[in-house]
């Protein structure tokens, strides 16, 4: 009779032991602080030819008319005077965000610049590539270089001698407009022409 009584007790105890051990210590799942996940980053799996980026702002309208001053007038001025003049005969080329592609307006501006360079056969120019302040500084140095090279390649295709066209990239280090809005950014995404020798 004693043995019969022992078996249910052992079974009951074991059951309780198992039930007791099976419980895990409850843990509080504290929600991650808002904004800590890089949800806004480009997806890791996005295909290379469609990088996720904000919609491009509309291209800035560029006046494509050649400056009104007669071309001969620039011969009498110094390099610094020409470069600091608001009406430099050499027009800047503007780009869309994170792009080094020439727009139609940009090609027109370059065609006008090619005309000026043909008129002044001794001029040597430096094409500066600039970017707006968005994106990391080091990346923008390469982007600025691509923009300057795009303008240079197009001018060479228009028949300007390569040795008259130098390039330099300033990235986002040397903004034309120090503002922090699209109107400033659109001015800063440019290939800027500086007269280096005449």
């Amino acid at each position, binding site marked *: 009779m004693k043995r019969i009584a022992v078996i249910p007790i052992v079974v009951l105890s074991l059951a309780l032991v198992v039930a007791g051990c099976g419980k895990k210590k409850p843990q509080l799942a504290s929600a991650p602080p808002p*904004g800590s996940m*890089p949800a806004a980053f480009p997806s890791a799996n996005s295909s290379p*030819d469609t990088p996720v980026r904000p919609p491009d702002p509309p291209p800035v309208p560029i006046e494509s008319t050649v400056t009104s001053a007669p071309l001969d007038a620039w011969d009498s001025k110094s390099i610094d005077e020409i470069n*600091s003049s608001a009406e430099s005969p050499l027009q800047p080329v503007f780009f869309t965000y994170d792009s080094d592609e020439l727009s139609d307006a940009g090609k027109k501006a370059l065609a006008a610049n090619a005309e000026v360079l043909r008129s002044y056969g001794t001029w040597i120019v430096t094409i500066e590539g600039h970017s707006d302040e968005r994106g990391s*500084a080091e990346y923008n140095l390469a982007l600025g*270089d*691509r923009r300057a090279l795009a303008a240079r390649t197009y001018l060479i295709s228009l028949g300007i001698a390569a040795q008259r066209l130098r390039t330099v990239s300033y990235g986002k280090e040397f903004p034309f407009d120090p503002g922090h809005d699209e109107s400033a950014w659109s001015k800063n995404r440019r290939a800027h022409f500086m007269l280096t020798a005449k």
Partner: protein
Amino acid sequence: MNRTLRTLLVAAAGVGVAVTGGALADGLVSAEPIVQQQQVDEIALALSNPGAHPRLGLPDFVMRPGDPTMAATAKTVADVLWDDLNFEREYYLIPRTTTAGIPVTPVAAIPYQQWADAGADVVLHGNAYPSGGNLVVELRLVSVRGAAPGAQYFGKKYQCGLQTARGPRDCAHQIADDFHWEVRRVQGVARTRIAFTSDRDAVRVGGRPNQSAAASKEIYIADYDGANQMRFTANRSINISPAWAPGGSLLAYTSYSTGFPDVYVANLAQPGRGLQRPAAGTEAIHNQLAAWSPDGSMLAFMSNRTGDQDIWVVNRDGTGLRNLTTFRGADEGSPTWSPDGTQLAFTSDRAGIPQLYTINLTGTGTRRITSERIDRPTWSSLNFIAFTIGSPGSEIGIWDFANPGVKVLTAGAGTSESPSVSPNGRHIAFFTTRWGRQEIAVMDRTGQNVRRLTTTGNNTYPNWQPIPGR
């Protein structure tokens, strides 16, 4: 602190005794131990346990009255020492203002109960006195609770040279690094500095379009805690991307002073003189974003020599120039060396967006690490890479080879970019727009304890100096 520096300290101690405290030196002149006995109690165990954070009080140093200038110097040393010790988070530092009411006494009369009431486990007691124009500080780490209050675990006599205004701060930094090493075997970074680019003294660059901003940027150097910010270059052009050489006495940077970007190597001891241009840039060849090999013999940099941007390496003397990334039709940039010097990490947009790659120094074994949009990688000596991640709206992230995966450290307001890791791998300097303009900040490797270093102008491209003299 390594063996070399300890030897140096011992040697300096010898010199200090021989000169009997000549007042010509600056910073730490000598250091000699004054406490030998080691108690083994719970406090001693906590002090040697990396996981424990003993609570430490740091009262004003005991000084004989009558010399207000020296007393002010001693207070500066104590304040800076508190800050330096707090920075590494090895101890819980009780704020000095909280314990200002506890009487400052000789070491034998420390009011243990009052310190224990303030929560302290140990007190770093200082006894200071002038000696030949120097300030001598005797530091003792004393238990104030547990089985044996009054037990001493550390004791050293430091001699601080006060030749210039930097003296007291420099000395405190060196004491903090020595103390961290002696008690916790932690390599402190209190005596390191941070170089960065700033437009705070901007001048208009000549010959630019009148309607443009055209502001110059120069290289600046500050102590790791933001003190003593001073200008290093003065060429009124654009100077960016400073990079300290191992040993911390040479600084490479990119300057546009000749009209095109080139890598310059400057000697800290003679700023502006003897500049070297190992990458030999010209109007057509541009070199930027230099990084030193761990042994200081080579520089890696970004160059346009082949038409697009590639990573090139060159010996310090300008020999041995070669292209490491010959992949065509893509831009490679931001090189950084692995701790053993056999590999480099860099960014490449060959897959459409800039991503993180590694390559052997031999030019073989190119490997993509992650598919995120990455810029400015920095390979720490602790074998993780910190970088800028995302665009626009970038943050600081790290990739740890011991635990692979991207971890983002910053979040929220503004953008954060251009990380530079402290030589002990425990902190990251970066620049951020969270306070409006671009400012240099420092945070722990975990992303916590963000501390702002700059307040004027736009400040970018921080680079953390290696431990000087190593």
